[in-house]
């Protein structure tokens, strides 16, 4: 497994310090695919990495593959349609399951113990719903890969080989934020995990989410808020036991303890860790150890463990 370092958002950059602390002084492969068309705009990232960055241009490779391989483009379109449909269906079920939780919470129980037992069952049902949804998404992705024989397609194989060569000349990999679904797809399509070797991985924002075990989307302050946190896909699993919550204080109703408690209970035993500005979470061999970063407790409050 790889050593992984999760960072808070880089509006106030901490990347350069992190790289220095890790003793990295060689080239560093960068993944900026989450920013899609803006993938090449990586001057600031390059500066933070001492002008040693090697942009893997995974988004551009994806676009190139779609242009070059019409069958792949059509299958990719169908894949996205199926995922969108699955997500919509899952969200409908999730919405009603959440309504059930809310109804139980407001039920004037004569015996609170009975209500708590029902509540525990209701949370368990949501956990099962989340898990089943991830399985279904996996099936779509597996079908896509198998039916298309992805690894045998010339344009994909060519780009994978190029990515492997580029990564091979670097000392570490840095994965930036952006659109987490796009980022995750590019990481998978071009087989990044297969060429990492033992290189350390540094990731932040959407990058941190994409390399965790499952991608959990959330935005309590969006136009139609509060929405429900939703699982979107299984991540690369390079760091385990953690649900990274970048921008948590800007996106979550941190002070709504019941809401936050439900979030923690849905994903336990994985810990929901707040990755705000300046945060740094070290995961040696991909395992998340003790941290003094704020973690959402089962009581819905933020707790900092002793490191």
């Amino acid at each position, binding site marked *: 497994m790889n050593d992984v370092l999760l960072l808070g*958002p880089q*509006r106030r950059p901490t990347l350069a310090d992190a790289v220095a602390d890790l003793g990295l002084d060689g080239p560093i492969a960068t993944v900026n695919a*989450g920013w899609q*068309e803006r993938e090449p705009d990586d001057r600031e990232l390059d500066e933070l990495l001492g002008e040693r960055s090697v942009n893997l241009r995974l988004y551009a490779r994806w*676009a190139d593959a*779609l*242009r070059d391989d019409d069958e792949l*483009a059509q299958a990719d*379109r169908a894949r996205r349609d199926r995922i969108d449909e699955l997500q919509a269906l899952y969200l409908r079920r999730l919405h009603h399951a959440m309504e059930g939780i809310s109804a139980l919470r407001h039920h004037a129980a004569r015996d609170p113990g009975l209500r708590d037992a029902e509540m525990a069952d209701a949370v368990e049902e949501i956990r099962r719903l989340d898990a089943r949804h991830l399985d279904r998404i996996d099936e779509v992705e597996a079908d896509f890969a198998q039916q298309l024989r992805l690894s045998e397609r010339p344009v994909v194989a060519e780009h994978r080989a190029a990515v492997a060569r580029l990564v091979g000349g670097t000392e570490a990999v840095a994965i930036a*934020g*952006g*659109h*987490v*679904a*796009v980022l995750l797809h590019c990481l998978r399509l071009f087989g990044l995990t297969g060429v990492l070797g033992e290189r350390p991985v540094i990731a932040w*924002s*959407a990058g941190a*989410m994409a390399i965790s075990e499952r991608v959990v*989307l*959330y*935005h309590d302050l*969006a*136009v*139609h808020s509060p*929405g429900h946190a*939703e699982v*979107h896909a299984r991540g690369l699993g390079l760091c385990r036991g953690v649900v990274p919550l*970048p*921008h948590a204080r800007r996106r979550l109703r941190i002070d709504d303890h019941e809401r936050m408690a439900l979030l923690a209970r849905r994903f336990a035993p994985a810990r929901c860790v707040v990755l705000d500005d300046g945060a740094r979470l070290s995961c040696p061999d991909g395992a998340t150890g003790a941290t003094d970063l704020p973690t959402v407790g089962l009581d819905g409050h933020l707790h900092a463990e002793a490191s």
Partner: protein
Amino acid sequence: MLHVGAQPLAIDQLRHGGADAAAVDRFLDAHDVPLVEGATGTFLWRGEADAVRVQHWVVGLPNPLPMERLDGTDLWFAVTDLPEGSRVEYRLEVVHGDHVDNVEDPRNPNHAHNPYGSNSVVHGTGYEVPDWIELDEDARRGELRDLVLHSAALGRSVHAKVYLPARYRPTARYPLLVVHDGTDYLTFAAAQTVLDNLIHRLDVAELVAVFLDPGDRLVEYANHEGHARFVADELVPELERALPLIDHRGGRCLMGSSFGAIAAFSTAVRYPDRFGSLLLQSGSFAFTDIGSDHGGGPVFDPVVAFVNAYRAEPTRVADRLYVTCGTYEPMIRGSRAMVPVFRGTGAEVRYVEARDGHNWENWRDRLRDGLAWVFPGPQKFVYE
């Protein structure tokens, strides 16, 4: 007289202080016009006249609202309820003998424009002009392209504008928003700027919009078979041939306000499998429960016949409906009555009321909520 708690209104303080010309000068210098104090608005006009009235379009208030002359001065005033969050358009009628000047409020800098001219606007406590209607330097601009299409269904050429979002890519796929009264939405509801901003902010998905204008609006938008056929069988297929659009109902939305909402709704009724969403603003949902006196005049006859028929046998016309109406406009009764009918068909309905009237800025102000609901942006996917 109305008061804000124990605090007397400013106009009462002026009156009880023995107002003269100099006091009126000081008063007007010290206050924005109209005066908004809590949930009360005070309209003001200064000058010689036989009478002054406030013309407005708020159902429930006397219209016109007579102004009273402050004793010993040439200051006219009228005090009215102005609930929190209200936005009211008005004009002043200044009467000299048999002559009436209908003018905007010369002391109020806030104006709203519409196809017939402009009105003064008073903002109640708590109302804020949305920041997403203003040009945002950071937001890349989409492109408006002219489209000319000969319609066999309408028997005329249709001139429309097609909005392509910034960073438009032929390899992507976009949902389609069909906008009735398109030029008015662009002109009076800042639709292009709104789309640019909401897409830039990730509130709304990157989309293609087509802005349509009617021929004879009161005919084509009043449950017109030719209009529906044009939209469903001519316009949408043509756009789908020319542009990378999502080719199923989930990616298509019809939008309109007033009669335009009826055009959108009646098109969906005629083609129930084509459109996944409707965005209906202040729809002219006129109907009768008994008899035939709907009070809307002959132009509403086909609308009433259509809405009555639909209410008698409601059918599911879309998966999701965003319905909005101003509480100060006559259409509110129809909108409130239609919501449970729509819901009864199994459609998902979001219904929003605003303390506003039947006007373009009301419709503008609801666009973020409506569009973000119909075609939500990727905000939840993007983590900087």
